[in-house]
């Protein structure tokens, strides 16, 4: 059985396929997968060459044979894959114990949120391929993958329709990252979590350039490691790609790497049967055994945080509990505010961000999935999925790009039985709260017992203790003063179990004055006892400083490098200069840093409405006029708009009624289009004029615009498209909207639009830029 041989017998894969096909006559622009049907003898011949050279596997000629790529092609993906399998089976006759590997490459389109390809589309595509031939193959090989998110969807597709072994290799550039920004450690962590059978690296680089990446992979995983390098780093000579390495050079470079513990080795572009034959002759027959220490790691799609090397800060601010503004934003679906809050925490130095969207009346699984997707578009940090709703946890784990922290389970069997299967399936590091059916036990020893119970129960599910972090639970000093030290004691006890610990630090000071003082003192005590993951507000500079200082004193921050750098920076920060600019000047000059103060000053002598009418609107009109006459240019317009928007926000808080804005106005970039800079400029300029703008984002299907129309009853709808091809979706959206009686005015803009095109697609108005949109709305919205 293949699985039993992994990490024991060194297994040999085949080599380059495309280069062999070219040698046998395939021309540029031909689709290699068609050869399965049109020239099966050629494909079988190549398989034979590799088998005779010593390969243990037949890689099917199906790299690009996915349903999405072959849509509207001469042959369907079914025809291509079935023919490829037939060829592999035919070839196998000369070596009956060879394994057939169904080869699956990347789909070739970018996934959401950068692109429009969805997680579910990837999943379906792979599932269809595997379902078709799962009885005839021995393993599924994902190779040359660049996006760990695509790989995650693909692996889940295989796992949910078969028990086939999965080998997954990604391709990295010379800078040590994949094209999507994933590094080798992140790949290892996510793929280990998803429990593939072998993981590794192929293509892009030759064995020499791959060496440091291979070594780092071998050091960080005990999983079988697979490598398939190119015949050297490809060169482009007069438009032709050439691979510089000869077989002997390749062998000289790769064999020492193989001896470090590689389990599966083959070649990629430019390698030939000669390379494989020499691999077989020169590599040992068995896999060199390795000692790897298992570390607790969580990952985003690009970044991995390791525990035990420094105190890991978890930002707590994405949680509506006790935060009125966030509650309202969640209820009104203004998720952008959550993204901004996340960015602030990232900038402040958090390492992980907690995400909790639990509110009464909210569809938590749906909102959690949506928010996770939005956050992972811009946030590099790993996320901590925080919910008491098991379904929300599962949705988030499924659609999360990376290996998350999961908050949380506790000592109740019911909770563990619901959450552990999710942790096991998707991979994750789970927080275990030291409480059970009887609540939080008062004594450290009792919490320690619950921690043990959680660790043991996890083990039954195959979850290693490296993937568990125990929360010893902070009680408030105001209500349970004598139990505060029990928490600290529990932290040191739990550490003896070989797991990391987490605490929600600020609970300790609840109900007492000068909370920051208690928080930072307690934090220092807890870290000293062994706290690894404080959940705190990273915008609290005192807490962050305490952690920096602790990292020095605990010998985490070697030579105090980080500490010195930060402290040196904070010393040169001068107190903010105060200017004598009036609010009018501040807006005209777009001085965003000063506008809040200037507005507050103005509010001392004037009421809000007067400021809006007598200062802001005239200043904006001046700016608009200067922009239209070319006196100022685009960035200056936007700067002023952003400043004015901040002023409006400050003033709005003084109004008694909530109905202080104009609008609302819906805006969206239409389906299929992902350009949104123009739409975002329109948004900020409209907001600067006091319009409430509901931004539906980019790539927005017509029906979503219609749903939003019914929900928000906008005064106008603005649609943006940048491409001639997406103007078609714009027209479809307008057609759908106009089926409604009394539809509000629809205005359109974007690089390829003109007055004529706008008329052709039945838009009510064409606005050539953001100022034109303001002028229009000032006329038509009352």
């Amino acid at each position, binding site marked *: 059985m293949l699985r039993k041989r992994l990490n024991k017998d060194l297994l040999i894969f085949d080599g380059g396929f495309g280069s062999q096909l070219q040698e046998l006559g395939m021309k540029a*622009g031909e689709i290699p997968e068609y050869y399965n049907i049109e020239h099966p003898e050629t494909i079988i011949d190549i398989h034979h060459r590799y088998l005779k050279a010593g390969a243990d596997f037949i890689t099917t000629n199906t790299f690009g044979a996915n349903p999405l790529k072959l849509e509207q092609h001469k042959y369907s993906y079914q025809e291509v894959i079935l023919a490829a399998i037939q060829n592999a089976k035919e070839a196998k006759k000369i070596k009956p114990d060879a394994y057939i590997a169904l080869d699956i490459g990347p789909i*070739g389109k970018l996934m959401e949120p950068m692109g429009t390809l969805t997680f579910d589309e990837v999943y379906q595509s792979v599932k269809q391929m595997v379902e078709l031939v799962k009885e005839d193959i021995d393993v599924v090989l994902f190779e040359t993958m660049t996006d760990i998110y695509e790989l995650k969807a693909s692996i889940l597709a295989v796992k949910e329709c078969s028990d086939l072994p999965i080998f997954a290799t990604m391709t990295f550039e010379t*800078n040590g990252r994949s094209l999507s*920004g994933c590094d080798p450690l992140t790949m290892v962590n996510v793929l280990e979590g998803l429990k593939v059978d072998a993981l590794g690296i192929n293509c892009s680089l030759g064995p020499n350039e791959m060496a440091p990446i291979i070594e780092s992979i071998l050091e960080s995983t005990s999983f079988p490691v697979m490598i398939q390098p190119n015949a050297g780093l490809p060169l482009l000579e007069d438009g032709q790609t050439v691979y510089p390495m000869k077989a002997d050079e390749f062998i000289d470079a790769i064999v020492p790497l193989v001896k470090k513990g590689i389990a599966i080795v083959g070649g990629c572009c430019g390698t030939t049967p000669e390379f494989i034959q020499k691999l077989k002759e020169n590599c040992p027959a068995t896999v060199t055994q390795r000692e790897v220490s298992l570390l607790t790691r969580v990952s985003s799609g690009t970044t991995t945080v390791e525990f035990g090397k420094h105190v890991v800060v978890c930002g707590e601010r994405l949680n509506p509990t006790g935060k009125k503004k966030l509650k309202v934003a969640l209820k009104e679906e203004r998720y952008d505010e959550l993204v901004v809050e996340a960015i602030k925490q990232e900038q402040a130095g958090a390492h992980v961000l907690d995400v909790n969207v639990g509110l009464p009346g909210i569809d938590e699984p749906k909102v959690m999935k949506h928010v996770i997707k939005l956050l992972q578009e811009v946030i590099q940090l790993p996320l901590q999925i925080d919910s008491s709703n098991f379904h929300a946890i599962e949705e988030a784990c499924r659609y999360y790009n990376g290996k998350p922290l999961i908050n949380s389970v506790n000592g109740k069997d019911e909770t563990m039985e619901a959450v552990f299967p999710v942790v096991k399936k998707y991979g994750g590091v789970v927080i275990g709260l030291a409480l059970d059916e009887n609540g939080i036990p008062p004594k450290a020893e009792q919490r320690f017992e619950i921690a043990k119970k959680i660790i043991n129960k996890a083990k039954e599910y195959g979850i290693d203790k490296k993937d568990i972090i125990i929360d010893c639970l902070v009680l408030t000093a105001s209500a349970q003063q004598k139990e505060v030290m029990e928490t600290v004691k529990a932290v040191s006890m739990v550490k003896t179990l070989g797991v990391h610990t987490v605490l929600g630090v600020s609970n300790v000071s609840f109900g007492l004055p000068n909370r920051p003082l208690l928080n930072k003192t307690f934090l220092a005590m807890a870290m000293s006892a062994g706290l690894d993951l404080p959940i705190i507000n990273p915008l609290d500079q005192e807490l962050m400083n305490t952690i920096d200082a602790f990292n020095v004193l605990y010998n985490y921050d070697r030579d105090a490098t980080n500490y010195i750098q930060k402290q040196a920076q904070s010393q040169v920060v001068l107190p903010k200069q105060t200017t004598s600019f009036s609010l009018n000047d501040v807006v005209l000059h*777009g001085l965003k840093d000063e506008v809040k103060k200037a507005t507050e000053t103005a509010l001392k002598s004037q009421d809000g409405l007067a400021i809006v009418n007598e200062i802001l609107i005239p200043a904006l009109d001046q700016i608009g006029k200067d922009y239209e006459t070319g006196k100022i240019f685009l960035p200056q317009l936007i700067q002023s708009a952003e400043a004015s928007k901040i002023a409006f926000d400050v003033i709005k808080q003084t109004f008694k009624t909530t109905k202080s804005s104009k609008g609302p106005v819906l805006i969206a970039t239409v389906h299929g289009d*992902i350009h949104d*800079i123009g739409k975002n400029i329109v948004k900020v300029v409209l907001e600067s004029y006091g319009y409430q703008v509901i931004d539906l984002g980019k790539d927005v299907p017509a029906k979503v615009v219609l749903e939003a129309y019914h929900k928000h009853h906008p005064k106008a709808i603005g649609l943006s498209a940048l491409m001639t*091809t*997406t103007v078609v979706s714009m027209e479809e959206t307008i057609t759908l909207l106009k089926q409604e009686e009394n539809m509000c005015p629809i205005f359109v803009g974007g690089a390829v639009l003109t*007055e004529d095109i706008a008329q052709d697609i039945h838009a009510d108005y064409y606005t050539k830029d953001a100022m034109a949109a303001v002028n229009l709305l000032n006329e038509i919205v009352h």
Partner: protein
Amino acid sequence: MNFSKIKENALKYLGYHHQTLDEKLNNLIDECIEEIEKMSSFRATYRKFPLSFHPLRIDEISLNLNYPELNDLFQNCHELIIIGCTLGLQVEKRSHYYSHIDMTKATIFDAVASSFLEVKCNEYEDEQLIGKRTFRFCPGYGRVPIELNKELAFIIESSKKIGLTVQESNILLPQKSMIGLIGLGDNRKEKTCQNCLHIKDCNFRKRGQTCYAKD
């Protein structure tokens, strides 16, 4: 890298035309150039094919190029380069990031990235292509359909080689990417506004500029 050219182009894209450029904006542009230089991973690839005429096409790959602008531009050429290049995904991600927190910077960042790509691509072409050549023509202009991008990307294997993908709607992703055609054997480098959709209502033209570089 020609930083002054990058800045000059970026300013042009932002609609700059002799307005006062205060220190803050000036610094912001420099900051964006520096950031993009650090985080971009410029990649390019190309292939070269003999051209055949009447109708204009590449026989080897059965590619039809029979469009008025291409017939005109490549009439004296004997070979054609299909080129693709990109700044990579990190620039794209950063651009989204700024859109959330600072639209002024996001706008400048976007313009600088476009300019950066343009300059990088020109430099790459100058290194690789010696001899007489035309300017780079990108599908989507004039009567050359943007749908051609998909075929061109497939031929140069842009997705696999440089991570440049073409979406269903023919949008290139990462956005700061380019696919173009360059004729070899003729020195025509002058572009014209003749067939542009915006010829009647072009802000660049109103300012006495063109959106492309004039040699």
